[in-house]
């Protein structure tokens, strides 16, 4: 059954390079599915998110083969520039999201609402809800450039999420988040964004990755594993060379072999 988003035989090749950044990748993502893509630098994770969010479409430096359909619309050829607000992409360098035209994070969020052409009477309610969900109340009135690394990541996320996009792509969102904020992000994914399609990339195994029931391991542009979280746990040691397992390798026997429901229940207790 086709989901919200279907990727078929996607191949991405930059500047006529012989080795493609992504090689015939296929998967589907339902409207409420959450999928984690893990792999080392250069595996093709960012290329996948960039292709999905439409920013590679029509670019002269990249050759795109295959197809990506979002709600029945072909992204690779049909949309030029960006698929926003259908797809929201949190880039690896989150500060790219800041327009530098607004004096504080909340004003940046209003610019997003304007861009997404949402009726103005909904703005304040959405803004408040997103500020609360992202836990940025303590610094939402500050200038975006005055924030620390971790705060920047959450502020950028709030600026994107306020548009209410049905598909959300997060490119290594944990790289600047400490343990507590990684738990907060997992809570945000499970509680507030449970009705969206989410794809999240990481080079390291993190809690947000493990809240996804579907996991893909990419290496050198190819999916070397696509399966459920339980299957991923079972084969965990095989991925040690391409994925930084952090402290999770030692945790496998204690919690990795629980059923999906028991695992989620345990994580629920943490959130």
């Amino acid at each position, binding site marked *: 059954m086709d989901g919200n988003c279907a990727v078929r035989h996607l191949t991405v090749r930059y500047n006529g390079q012989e080795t493609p950044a992504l090689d015939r990748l296929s998967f589907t993502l339902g409207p409420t599915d959450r999928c984690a893509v893990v792999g080392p630098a250069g595996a093709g994770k960012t290329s996948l998110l960039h292709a999905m969010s439409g920013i590679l479409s029509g670019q002269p430096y990249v050759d795109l083969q295959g197809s990506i359909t979002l709600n029945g619309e072909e992204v690779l050829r049909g949309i030029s520039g960006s698929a926003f607000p259908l797809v929201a992409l949190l880039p690896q360098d989150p500060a790219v999201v800041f327009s530098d035209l607004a004096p504080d994070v909340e004003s940046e969020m209003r610019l997003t609402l304007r861009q997404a052409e949402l009726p103005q009477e909904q703005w304040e309610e959405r803004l408040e809800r997103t500020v609360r969900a992202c836990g940025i109340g303590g610094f939402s009135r500050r200038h975006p450039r005055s924030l620390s690394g971790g705060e920047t990541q959450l502020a950028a996320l709030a600026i994107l999420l306020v548009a209410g996009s049905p598909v959300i792509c997060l490119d290594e969102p944990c790289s600047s988040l*400490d343990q507590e904020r990684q738990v907060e992000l997992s809570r945000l994914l499970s509680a507030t964004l449970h009705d969206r399609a989410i794809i999240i990339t990481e080079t390291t195994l993190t809690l947000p990755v493990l809240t996804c029931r579907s996991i893909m391991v990419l290496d050198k542009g190819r999916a070397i594993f696509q399966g459920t979280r339980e299957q991923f746990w079972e084969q965990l040691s095989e991925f040690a060379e391409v994925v930084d397992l952090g402290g999770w390798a030692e945790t496998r026997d*204690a919690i990795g072999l629980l059923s999906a429901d028991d695992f989620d229940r345990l994580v629920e207790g*943490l959130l």
Partner: protein
Amino acid sequence: MIAERVSFGYSEDLPVLHDVSLTLHPASLTILSGRNGSGKSTLLRLLSGLLSPSDGTIRLNGRDIHALPPPERARSVGVAFQFAEDQLTERTVAREIALGLRALGIPEFDRRTSESLSAFGMSDFADRHPYDLEPAQRKLLTIACALSSPAQWILLDEPFAGLSRAEINWALVTLRAAKQDGRSIMLVAHDPTIVMSEADRLVVIHEGKIALDRTKLEGFSYEHITATTAMPMPASLRLRMMREKELKAGG
């Protein structure tokens, strides 16, 4: 390098550091850790002389860092920022590494540049634009830039963010060599366990103050850090403990 009773805030209603004193010694690797927003990057910017403390002083080899002329400061302190995009300005990777060396009038900057490129496995990318690199390679380039300078004090802000274990190990080889050359490295890491085995010292900041400053790190784990500071424990460890508790309760 000595920070003496340093306080700093970005504005009056936004204090960040309060009365922080810290001495960095040559030939050592110090991890600076703490929660998001605790003031790690701010302290690093103060130590590099990019920010001026509102109170207290930063002294380098006995002299106030702000009294040093900028070239002398640049010759003494090498910095890599958290986001590579904040510091890369040149057209090629080789030019980026050579930039600081050339500006400081370092002799044989070409030879030094190729040595740096080869130490970081970047010789094949020498002529590529830094923005055409993978983000992790870009990050390694910023570390290479900091280490290629003659600076005695190397300050790195989250140098391992986004790097794979293999790349971290690669970077650690060069940091180890720099330490053996007598240089002092301080790196910011929100997860200190990544490099704990390599480090001589761990400093944790909490709410603008030094909450932990320790040199004996063998056998020192996250549980100890959590017990002495407000640093949260990794989720993997917390889940394991929760499961063990569940099993115990179940008989």
